[in-house]
């Protein structure tokens, strides 16, 4: 560009007007440098690129935590060689060990925020000419706040419904829990659960989980974060000594990755030894989310001294004050093909607390909202026997809309001012 940049930012190097230099300015000036902005943009481009490549091997949530929601990330060199193998025919035998440290999403985000605020404090004066820039930057900050709220407070879960069946709880398929259910009360089950994080620690340390609320103590022999189960062959060893698991074999599988088309959810399993309060061995049990599928639950009964309990490893449940009944599930295809055209759940929503009892339809791109939660058509159960709804509570859901409108307006104003100036000069 010419010696006089279109924007006054670069002139900020000259002292603004007269008077003694403000000591705060001495600190802010260097922080406000556009050079830093550009470097940060470049860093974020590299980060996003590797965060995309990493999804070839890792679950999208792991990638988000490691790359975008962290201060520092160790990017494995393997990703670079994988990229070169995919696109540049590098021999597949090539393998680069090790990893390089790189600033994570959080660090870059805060650096950009500091840089932006410093820029506004030192260079960017409030004026009509600058109104577009102000709107853009303000909108972007708003967007970041929205992303933060979503990250911290949004809860995503699913509700699985068999046609004709009802449910009043949602499941989070990113977390598991070991549940002991006391079915003795006819009206309501009494449930005690061990959260997944406790199971993980117990599996690591080998220490039994002992809690007075539990009917027995639990030793986690092994924990598989993703698994498959199948009927046990004649010659295969018995993993479990009791229950359904006696006739099953569990296979460990790699955790799902972000670009996997076939499997999107990890299906954990565990081998646990249960010991009664008085030290009696209650046997080794295979518990798995596979045994808890809504369509074909296979409960396992443990005879503890306290009474009979049902034990299961299941996705973390949250109980809701409302009940949803799936009245009909429709899976339409294009005529003469198997290509899905529409998935639709016709449901009845009952919420006695606030006196709601109404039918509703949830279909692709047409969610239902209730009590600050949004219900989306998510999946069909095998054989169209039922429907899976995605249930999302996100207190920050409005912010992206708002910030998008602000930034877009800002860009229109800013580029509009520039364009009209350019056109005036051309004529």
């Amino acid at each position: 560009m010419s010696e006089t940049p279109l924007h006054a930012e670069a002139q900020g190097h000259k002292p603004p007007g007269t008077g003694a230099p403000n000591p705060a300015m001495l600190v802010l000036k260097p922080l406000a440098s556009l050079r830093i902005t550009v470097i940060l943009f470049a860093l974020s481009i590299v980060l996003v690129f590797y965060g995309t490549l990493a999804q070839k091997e890792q679950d999208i949530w792991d990638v988000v935590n490691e790359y975008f929601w962290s201060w520092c990330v160790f990017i494995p060199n393997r990703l670079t060689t994988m990229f070169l193998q995919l696109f540049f025919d590098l021999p597949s035998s090539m393998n680069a060990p090790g990893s390089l440290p790189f600033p994570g999403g959080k660090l870059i985000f805060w650096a950009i925020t500091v840089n932006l605020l410093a820029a506004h404090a030192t260079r960017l004066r409030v004026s009509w000419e600058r109104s577009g820039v102000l709107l853009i930057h303000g909108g972007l900050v708003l967007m970041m706040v929205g992303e933060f709220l979503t990250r911290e407070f949004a809860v995503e879960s699913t509700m699985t419904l068999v046609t004709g069946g009802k449910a009043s709880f949602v499941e989070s398929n990113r977390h598991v829990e070991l549940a002991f259910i006391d079915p003795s009360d006819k009206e309501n089950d009494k449930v005690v659960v061990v959260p997944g994080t406790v199971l993980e620690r117990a599996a690591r340390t080998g220490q039994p989980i002992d809690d007075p609320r539990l009917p027995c103590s639990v030793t986690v022999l092994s924990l598989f974060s993703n698994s498959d189960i199948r009927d046990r062959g004649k010659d295969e060893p018995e993993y479990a000594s009791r229950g359904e698991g006696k006739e099953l074999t569990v296979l460990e599988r790699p955790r799902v990755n972000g670009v996997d088309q076939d499997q999107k959810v990890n299906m954990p399993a565990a081998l646990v030894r249960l010991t009664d309060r008085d030290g009696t061995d209650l046997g080794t049990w295979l518990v798995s989310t596979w045994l808890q599928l809504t369509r074909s639950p296979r409960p396992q009964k443990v005879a503890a001294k306290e009474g009979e309990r049902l034990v299961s490893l299941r996705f973390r449940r949250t109980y809701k004050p409302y009940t949803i009944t799936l009245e009909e599930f429709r899976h339409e295809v294009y005529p003469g093909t198997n290509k899905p055209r529409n998935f639709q759940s016709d449901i009845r929503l009952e919420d006695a607390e606030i006196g709601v009892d109404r039918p509703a339809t949830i279909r692709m791109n047409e969610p239902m909202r209730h009590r600050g939660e949004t219900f989306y058509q998510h999946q069909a159960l095998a054989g169209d026997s039922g429907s899976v709804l995605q249930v999302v509570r996100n207190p920050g859901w409005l912010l992206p809309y708002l910030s998008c409108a602000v930034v877009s307006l800002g860009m229109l104003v800013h580029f509009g001012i520039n364009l009209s100036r350019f056109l005036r000069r051309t004529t």
Partner: protein
Amino acid sequence: MSQVPGAKGLPGIPLAGWLVSGAVVGALSFMIVAMSYRSSSYDLEKFGQLPLQSGGRLKPFDTLARTSLQVITHRTEFTDPEGRSRPATEWLLDVMTSRLTDKGRAENLKIFRVENDQVLRLLGVERRQGLRYAINEFRDKMADIEKAAGEAAKVDPARRDVYQRQLLELTRHLELYIQIATLTLPETGLIPPETPPTGEETADDRWLTFQEAMVATREGRSNPATEAFGRVLLAYAQQKPADFNKHVDAYQEILQERVAAPAMAKVRMEQVYNAVNPIYLACVLYVCILLATLAGWMMGDKVIAVQRGVLAATIMVATIHTAALLMRMYLQGRPPVTNLYSSAVFIGWGCAWLGAMIEWLDKRGAGNAIAAVTGFLSLLIAQFLGASGDTLEMLQAVLDTNFWLATHVTCITLGYTASFVAGFLGIGYVLWGVCTPWMSAEGGKALVKKTYGVVCFATLLSFVGTVLGGIWADQSWGRFWGWDPKENGALLIVLWNALILHARWGGMVRDRGVAVLAILGNIITAWSWFGTNQLSVGLHAYGFDQTLARSLRITWIAHLALAGIGMLPASCWWSLRPKAVPVAPVSRSPKVAMAGRR
């Protein structure tokens, strides 16, 4: 805008320019379309307009013929044993009737394209020019092919070598051929159900496969449509053109009672669209425009007048391109972008009009060149992407929303468009400055200013498009941003454009820097457009993806090389070398003139 003298109507282009360009474009278009016309004693056009139901929609036999032939032989025409080019519908009829006759015409057509020597050896044929072989040439090797393909199929897709991939591709083509010959194409109904039309709803009824229709006839449930269609095929098999034409008419009358009129009109329109092939037409015309632009640059002081004329032609070709786009929208009943193929057509369309706009302001041919090069390249990519099948396919359930297709997809695709145009302007600047002595300080600066403007435009569109995508995601599964590969791809474009803008505002880059950064932007845009897809298909190495990966590689290396050239020191720039003559006095101030020389 400053006006060229004598301009009436649209500013800047003299009437003579419109007339001359109109005559040339019209004549060329006529020639190109007429050249693809093939006469026959059979009324192939009429047969080609008959509807069938395939992939969930009604389409003409013409489309089925072209897409199938394209898959098998990589062309939409074939060469008959006499060496003449013949239309796809003739091939389709030959194959469909191959079991009704013992002439063996279809079996002797050289249509199977085989490139690999090892596969050729397996087929027991000699390598020949054109690389196309008839099924009769390797009929006796079918068992061997089946056995070898069975073994190749067992190999993990990621580890298959060229031979195995091509062998499996050949078996897929053979399978398609046999499906046509035995009238057992999957997801394809040839015979309409026996219900009278009830408005638009008829399209939702499932058509009968030929087998189902035959079974119904055998069981005594006679369906006039089955018989009428059978007579059409029989007349063709017996080589009786007059009978064939008569029976086609009769079959069409039956169809008119069963298919709603608007649906029939659409099917007919699709055949006309296929026959005119406006995408191909525009693609060829863009090359002509590039040639005209280059010629215009040789004209010395007449350059502006000539480039104005070429601009008129650019506008006309872009209009043909627009018509193609509108026709596709009408046929599909959807906004312009619904799949990768249509994104290429749309990007080309945006590039062409953006180029025309730049030319309108610039007058020196840069805009014409951009329109021609980007229009041509994107349509070339489209031809390549369209080769894998039906480009007007139905959409998966989650995409079944015209609102988001119209807003998000259109916006993000326009963002790609603007980024590409900026990149090509950058390339133009670098080549102009390095390879020619003609880039004046003023001209170079003007070009970079345009690049800058287009980058602003690209930032706006890609940002809005990306955010709209987030809103769509929020609407359909409750997550505004999920960091998935495609979203990240879009984000990269926004970040890169923002980087260019900030680098310029901060004075870190000047003219050459903006040009080089814009060129590098093409690498990122190409990654977002195709690279991320490749990533999600992963290592599943089917033929098409291999080609895609190779094309991407070439694109990236070429752009890196161009960026490298752009970073050569000023002394290597032909146009920036100190000349004996002082800098032209047109610049506003000596300072600006010096800047242009940096």
